[in-house]
């Protein structure tokens, strides 16, 4: 099985009040449970079903993923900058395996 590896892009320095876009990508096969392998046997369903983002411990964004999401799920979403803090990203798959990554964002300038 491919190694699951999350990647996140958050601007390191931001301006107060600005709306930034956060891009996330996680390498994951997302087997929908309908595909067949080379021998014609069904590959069991194995997808990432939940994605959660916390900022300084508060829930800010979440998503429920279904088998209709592409391989290597890409998710981008906005965020309004108000304070310096840490983002905690977490992906959970069908085996309840958790993958997480943290990113720090610094507000460099106040308006």
């Amino acid at each position, binding site marked *: 099985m491919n190694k699951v590896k999350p990647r996140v892009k958050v601007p390191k320095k931001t301006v107060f009040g600005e*709306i930034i876009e956060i891009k996330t990508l996680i390498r994951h096969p997302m087997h*929908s449970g*309908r*595909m*067949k392998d080379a021998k014609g046997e069904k590959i069991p369903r194995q997808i990432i079903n939940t994605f959660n983002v916390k*900022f300084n411990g*508060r*829930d*800010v*964004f*979440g*998503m*429920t*993923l*279904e*088998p*209709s*999401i*592409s*391989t290597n*799920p*890409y*998710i*981008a*979403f*906005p*965020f*309004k900058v*108000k304070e310096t803090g840490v983002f905690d990203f977490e992906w959970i798959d069908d085996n309840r395996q958790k993958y997480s990554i943290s990113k720090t964002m610094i507000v460099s300038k106040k308006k």
Partner: protein
Amino acid sequence: MVNTMKLQKMKKISRRSALYLLGGITGTILTPSLPLSKPNQLLERIDTLTQGVAKVEDKILLNLPEVAENGNIVKVGFEIKNPMVANNYIKHVYIFAEKNPAPDVAKFFFTPEMGICSATTKIRLSKTQSVYLLAENSNGQFLMTKKKVKVTIGGCGV
């Protein structure tokens, strides 16, 4: 007397067996079309979510290609005009694909901290179909829109 009773009995049996027969026929007609999700099924799903609340169609920008060459990766983006403040923000956004084996594609959870309501992801589409977006406002309002996408090569195994 005996004759009429016999006749009644016969009638009863024949009606019952006829019903069984009818049930069997409809059963065989309906079963093969079940595995694929139908638009009706999707509309029912939307109805259970909205519980009859009217859906507004404006204020949504659904970004989808008109023609998707590869159904395995179709980029979906959306933006909903909303102030995103504590008493008026978009709570949930659902994305449905009407002809995928399972119409549910994704559900997004938003909070006022995001400033604007938008997101982008990549989805699988099994064939040419409409993609639906349903958004639920914190004040109980629902927004809905749909867009047709032509899929050249279907995303197999969705």
